[in-house]
Structures are given as structure tokens and as C-alpha cells.
């Protein structure tokens, strides 16, 4: 049966991988921002990471069931906070995403809502205690997740709103929705897509159009895609070296320390570096899945798989964008992109995974 475990039960392999990814991230932030207005970013990121590790340990030390039991109130708090953001949040870069905190800190509520969604979905699905998910429950859950999604999309921050989808989809997959419903879902998506497209903001439409045909908008997001591909391609096999990437250093690459950090990394470290980092991410994901497999109960499985699906989605969309295979959505690469909110929410989620792990089943 489940046992209480000590330090040695912490997922040290995952921890090592996470540290490696974060270190490469800090190095890349240093390289991309030195001699610019953001040149202090690398040590700030270091502080975020150190704080994030602390958060991860703290969360791992708390039994995840404590969160499970409070998942519904947490959900309510998150929804209320998102409404607050919409009403009183700070505007930046054309959208309202942040709320000010004492000490000049700005928190992106939508980032932390991810964790709440993970807990909420896990709680909802584990409560069902059935190997098959009924369509009625699936729709109810979808409706409940749609509320915070809609609020975030309203900011407007479609990229982050979309990150709630894989949490839901991963949960529904594990919970065992019948295949015929998946087929129906696919069909509905095909029908709904044109309607959804019509309701998008003009800049969001422009992003999709420029993704499909970057040459049409060489100054806007098409420009970003083109410059990112140039950065990646010119990196070649071995890369140009730290602080030697011309696309990054001469600022042709947009935001090379946040959304396009992997593009900058690919330019300076080449295909070899890319393989190494993708390998680290792969190990991370496999560790998450392994923790799900050894989870003591269904709730733990849903938590781990929700986190796994979310991280996988981030990697797919962000790295896919960097190589020009995904549209520009503005979602960060977990653990590498600069930014406290993103780093902390990722570490909090990994803390949850470890909380599941340390209470795992051992035969």
C-alpha cells in the first residue's frame, strides 16, 4: 500500500532534467539580452527558478489530496480573480493579463489558473469512479472549464486560454470517453472551426493568415515566423555559439528571451543543442507519465496526466512556432522562457506531480 516517503523518493531524475533545462534557459536569456535593456533578465530568471524550486518542494510536501478536497473552491476563486483581472487588470501589449501585487510584482492569473484547472479536472473525473466517462459528465466538465477559458480569451489571450484544452482533453482521454464520442467531437470541430474563426480578433486572424502564408505580412507576425525560421536554419548543425547568433544579437528575432527563446537557442546551439534540449523535455514528460503510472489513486493519475498534457501542448505549440509549423500564439516554453508567472506555475505543477510520486504505490 501507499507509504510515506522521504527525500530519496522525490523524483530526482526529473529534478535534474528540470535544472538542466532551466540552466540552459538562463544561459540563453543571458545571451539574448546582454547589451540590451533586458540585460538583467538572466539573474532575475535565476531568482525565479530558485523560488520556483522552493515552491515545488513546498507543494510536493503537501499531500495532493488536500488540494483535491479544495479543488472546487479554488476553481471559484480562480474564476473570480479572472473577472477581477478583466475589470481592474493592468494593460500591456494590447491585452489585460496582469494584476498588480504589493512590491511591484505583476501576476498573470491565467498562468496559475492552469493549476486550478488541473486540480479541478482531476477532482471532477476521479469523483466519477467509473472506467467509462459518460457523455453527460464530459459535457458538464467541458462547460465548467469553458468558463475560465472564455474569461482568459476575453483578455484577450487566446494562447493561454487554449492551454486549458489539453488539460481537459487529457483528462477526458484517461477517464475513458467512448470512441464514438471522440469521433463526434472531431466532427463538431470541423463544423465549429469556421464559426470560431469568424469571432476571432483581427490580429488573431492575421496571425493565422500569416502562418499559412508568411510572405503576405512580412512586417507583422509573418515577419516573426520568417525571422525565426532564418534563425533556426542558419544555426545549422552546431550553432553559431553563445552570444554569436546574428539573428538574436542584432534583434532580427522578436522577443528572443521569451516566446522565441528556443529559436535563439537553436541559432546559437544548432541541431545538436536542439536535440539535447528536446531530449531533456522528453525525459521530463516520460517521468511525469511514469509518476502517473505509479500513482496511488485515480486522482493522482489525472493530476500527472493533466500536467503532462499541458507541458506537451506548450512544447508542441511553442517549438512548432519556432520552426514555422505552428502559428504565432504567444505562449511561452515552460522552464526556458523568461517570466516569473510561467516559471512558477510550471514548478507548482511539477510539485503536484512529485506530491503524487512520493505517495506512490510500491510493491
Amino acid at each position, binding site marked *: 500500500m501507499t507509504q510515506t516517503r522521504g527525500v530519496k523518493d522525490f523524483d530526482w531524475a526529473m529534478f535534474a532534467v528540470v535544472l538542466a533545462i532551466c540552466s540552459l534557459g538562463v544561459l540563453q536569456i543571458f545571451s539574448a539580452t546582454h547589451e540590451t535593456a533586458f540585460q538583467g533578465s538572466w539573474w532575475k530568471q535565476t531568482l525565479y527558478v530558485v523560488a520556483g524550486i522552493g515552491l515545488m518542494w513546498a507543494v510536493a510536501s503537501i499531500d495532493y489530496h488536500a488540494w483535491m*478536497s479544495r479543488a472546487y473552491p479554488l476553481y471559484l476563486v480562480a474564476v473570480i480573480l479572472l473577472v477581477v483581472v478583466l475589470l481592474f487588470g493592468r494593460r500591456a501589449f494590447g491585452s489585460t493579463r496582469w494584476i498588480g501585487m504589493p512590491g511591484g510584482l505583476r501576476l498573470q492569473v491565467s498562468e496559475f489558473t492552469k493549476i486550478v484547472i488541473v486540480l479541478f479536472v482531476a477532482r471532477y473525473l476521479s469523483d466519477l469512479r467509473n472506467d467509462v466517462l459518460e457523455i453527460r459528465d464530459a459535457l458538464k466538465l467541458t462547460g465548467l472549464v469553458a468558463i475560465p477559458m472564455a474569461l482568459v480569451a476575453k483578455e484577450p489571450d487566446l494562447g493561454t486560454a487554449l492551454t486549458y484544452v489539453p488539460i481537459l482533453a487529457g483528462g477526458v482521454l484517461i477517464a475513458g470517453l467512448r470512441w464514438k464520442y471522440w469521433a463526434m467531437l472531431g466532427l463538431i470541430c470541423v463544423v465549429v472551426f469556421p464559426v470560431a474563426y469568424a469571432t476571432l480578433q483581427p490580429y488573431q486572424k492575421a496571425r493565422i493568415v500569416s502562418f499559412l502564408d508568411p510572405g503576405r505580412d512580412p512586417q507583422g507576425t509573418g515577419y516573426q515566423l520568417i525571422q525565426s525560421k532564418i534563425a533556426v536554419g542558419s544555426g545549422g548543425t552546431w550553432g553559431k555559439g553563445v552570444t554569436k547568433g546574428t539573428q538574436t544579437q*542584432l534583434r*532580427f528575432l522578436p522577443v528572443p528571451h521569451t516566446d522565441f527563446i528556443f529559436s535563439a537557442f537553436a541559432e546559437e546551439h544548432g541541431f545538436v543543442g536542439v536535440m539535447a534540449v528536446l531530449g531533456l523535455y*522528453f525525459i521530463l514528460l516520460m517521468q511525469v507519465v511514469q509518476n502517473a503510472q505509479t500513482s496511488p489513486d485515480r486522482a493522482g493519475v489525472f493530476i500527472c496526466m493533466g500536467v503532462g498534457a499541458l507541458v506537451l501542448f506548450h512544447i508542441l505549440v511553442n517549438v512548432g512556432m519556432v520552426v514555422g509549423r505552428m502559428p504565432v500564439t504567444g505562449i511561452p516554453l515552460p522552464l526556458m522562457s523568461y517570466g516569473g508567472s510561467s516559471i512558477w506555475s510550471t514548478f507548482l505543477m511539477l510539485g503536484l506531480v512529485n506530491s503524487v510520486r512520493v505517495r506512490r504505490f510500491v510493491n
Partner: protein
Amino acid sequence: MTFPPNERKREEPQLDLKPIKLKDNPRFAAAKMAAFQYVTVAIFLFLISGFWELQIKSPEIYNERAEKNRIKAFPIVAPRGKILDRDGRVIVDNHSTWSLILSRENLRDEHLHEIAEGLHLDYDDLLKRVNRFRKRSHYEPIIIKEELTPADLAFVDSHRDPETFPELELIESQRRLYPDNGILAHTIGYTGEISESELDIPEYAKYDQGQIIGKTGIEKQYNDSLMGIDGERQALVDNLGREREVLGIKPAKPGRNLQLTVDLDLQVVAELALEGKRGGVVALDPNTGEVLAMASRPTFDPNKFAVRIKTKDWQEITGDPGNPLLSRPLQAQFAPGSTFKPIMAIAALETGNIDENTTFNCPGGATFFGHFYKCHMTHGPTSLHRGITQSCDTYFYNVGNKMGIDDIAYYAHLTGLGSKTGIDLPNEASGTVPSTEWKLRNYRQKWYAGETISVSIGQGALTVTPLQLARAIGGLAIGGVWHTPRLTRQAKDDPKEWALNQENVRRVVAGMFGVVNEGGTGIRARIPGMDICGKTGSAQTVSNDYAKAHNIKDNAWFVGFAPCYKPEIVVAVLWEEGVHGQFAAPIARDVMKAYFDKKVHPVEQTRLESKDPLPALHP
């Protein structure tokens, strides 16, 4: 460190009040977790294939594009060669100025309005220009203003930062500086930016968009040697086009200086003599064909054309009824009037139609083919000598009648009339020498013998340019060699010879000496103590009745040379509506006087070496 014990047991009742009947087996979804792993592998392979495509399969393409991003070439404009007069004095110079270019990588259309305002440019013009460049390569800069004033420079300096107008970029360039009073303007021509239509012409294929080329005159004729080769500066730039580092400089190769045969002293005299008139003056050395002066009035300021002429200036110049762009020595084709008579005389003498003793009676005119042709006065019995000095029309009516049009045309052609002289300038006019064949070809009509009578005194369909006339009379005066007029010594001379009886030449020259020195019509060209020969001409341009009705005066012509024996200079003057040839004579006299004065007082060397050899041209 230890973690707190599992609290599940304690929490369970709160989560679900029902007793745990249903399994809570975490292995319920093993297959689905495996599916998730496969999806992960698939997604990673999808991403890796993206990197493979970019970094392994075709990194060269992206490398090249990255290089193109960061390395930018800034043009260094080569100065055009200077244009000098025959003594080495500078006529056309360059000065360096700053030009403003818009780099299109950073161009934002919404900035154009403010930029236009700040630089006092017309917004619509600017927009049109930017739009015109849109189709072209992204790396081709758009020059939007030349000759920046200190105020412009201050505006650019304070606004070119990346936050305001990052598209503003300055380049140093060379600009043509012409004499600003229009001296020699027609002959030198002007430069300008190569036009769209010119770029389509094969012979302009060697030039690039935006280059400054010679458009007319010497600037066009000798463009290739004047132009030089532009250099470039390669620099490392960032995404805002700011230079980070200079990588290399290929210096510009300046154009070659061009020395003209024109003598500025004579030129200035000719220009001043023509001031306020419509007309042209050309002075040649008949022995070499070298052009000593070539002036046309009214004139224009070629500086206005130097790069891009303003629409307003262009309309002003082209709308002027005086047609200031017409180079009269080269392009004005008019009936030469009596200045044609020396050519008639030599032709008649050479063909034996007359000799030195032939006389015709002038009762104030003569009747041919039932039509009375007037002379301007009654001369009585007139010899060849008197016929020339007094410009007796009756005498030449008879000569022409005896010769017939085709002989007249043949000899007129021999002296170079009726065809281009081949001077090293573009757009020369060829004039007209009528003949039976000419009339048949152009009008499909028979020649009327009466027309011959008009042509005999330089009227009718006969037209010449001042340049043709100077060359024709000059070649005659030196005994029958017609050199190709030229503005530079390197231009090809293709002399035409006609074995004239030198006695006949002497007779005609004697007549022309009489015109100036023996109380003839050209007495105003006389300079005591100097033997100047010449011939006046007063030519109708329209019929008598029309001229009276519209108050159109005769054109005044004068062609003269000096000295009589072995002449060194021949001058032809056209003064449109100058009434009578005698009024054109002083203009030629002034030019010849300047020529001979200079032989006595050559240009002082000190003046040549001083920095500003021609203060008059740089007020």
C-alpha cells in the same frame, strides 16, 4: 527531510460519503497512458523533423538570408568628372551634399505624413515615389530629398532614432554645380535621375535604378566617361538598420574630367551679346572644327535639373514661349537669307555659270516666269563683288536661274548644308536643302522653277542651323575643307574636301571683306585695323502679308570670319526677329574681338591656378 503521511484515509469520507465500493485502481488507464506516450513521441518527431528540415537539409539558404539581414551595403556615390574649358578652367563642378533616403525595411507608411511635413516635401509626391519603389527589391533605398539644408539635417538628426522614424537614413552624395546664369547651359546639358522609360531602352541597360545620368548635351554625349563608378560601404546592421560595425569599403571611382574646346572668354562675350534676345551664336576654328563658343538664348538654369526637377520649375521652363530648352546653334532651323549668297557665288563660279566679270542689271527687282521678284533696293548694273557687298538679290536671282535648283542643292550639300554636321552633341537638326528629288520625295510634287529664284537668296524651303552655316562658310573661307565641328579634341574629325579653284575662293572672300569694310551691309562688324569678312542675312520666316498682320519681324543673320586670309575663327549669329542682318553683325564682331584680344593678352597663369578661376560664374 520527510513528507507528511498520506492523508487520503482521512480525506476520503469528505470526498465521497458512499462507502468505497467502486475500484480506485490507478492502473485503470494503463493503455491510455501508453497512448499518451506514443502521442508524445509523435509530436517530438514532428518537431525534430522541423529542425532537420531547417538546420540539416538547407542551412545554407537560411544562412544566406541571415547574412542578407545583417549586412547592408550603403552606396558611395562617385563624383562625376568636371567639365573644363579649353584653358582648363572649371565650367561644371560638383559639391558634396547630404541626401535623405528611406530604408524600406523600417518604413512605416503612417510616418510619411510627418516626414513630408518636417522636410517641407509634398506629401502626395512623396507617397507616389514610395509607391513607385514598392515593386522593387526591398534593399533598394528610396532617395527622398537631396541637398539637405541645415534645417533638414537638424530634423533628421532629431528624428532618426528607432522610436520615431527609424527609416530615415543619410547618405553623402555629390551634386552637379552648373554656372547658375545659364552660361553654356544648352551645350553642356544637364543630368538627372534615370527615368522609368529610359530604363526600358537597351542602351541604358547598364545603368541602375536611381542613378544620375546625363540627359542632354555634353553630359549625355560623354556620360560614360564622366560618370565614374559608385563604391559601397558594407556594414553590420541590426533590425532597425542601425550600423553596428563597418565591414568594408569599396571606394568610389570618380568620373574623368572632360576638357572642352570652348573658350570661356569667348563664350561669356557671346552670352552677353545675346542677352535679352532670342538667338544663337556659334564660333568655330574652321581649321580644326573645334567649337570656341556656342551660346543660345533664352537660357535656363541647369541646376534645377541636377537631380530631379520640381514640377513647377519644369512647367515654367517648358511653358515659356521663348523655348529656353532649344539649343539654337544646333537645333534652330531657319532660312539663312543672304548669308547663303557666298555659297551661291562659289557654286556659280565653280560651275562656270558666272565669272568675275559677269554683271546683272538691278532695276529694283527682276521678272522670272511671269512673276516679279523684288530686290531691297535698286542697284543698277551689279558685278559679283558688288552683288555680295550690297547683297543684291537681283544678281543672285539671275545666278540661281542660270544654275538651276539641282546644281544649287549639290553645292549646298558639299558645304555641309542639309545634313547633320556630326558634332559631338545629341539631337542635332539637319536643316533642309530643297531639290527636285527632295520635293518629289517629300511632297510628291514637281519642282517649280520659280522656287529656285527664292532659294537663290536663301529663302524658300532652304533652312540651316547656325552651326551648319558657320561650318559651311568657315570651310569655304579656308579654301574648301569642311571639318567636323567638335567640342572635345578627342571627338573624331572627318573632314570633307572639295577641290576649289582658290581664285574663286579669293573672289568670294573679297566680296565678304567688302560687306564689312567697304560700306557693305555688315559694316557694324568692322573693327578698325582688323580684317574681318562677313555676310549679313535678313530672312523672312513667313509670307510678307502674314508678317505684317502679326507683326513678325525678319530673322537677323550674320556669318563672319577673320582674318580674311587663313582665317582662325568663324562666327555665325542668328537673332530671331532681329529685323536685319546688320544688327546681328556686332554680336559676331564682339566674339571675334575677344578672340584676337586674347591673342594679345593670353589668360594669365595665376588666374588659372587660383581656387576660383571664374568669379563671374560663382556669384
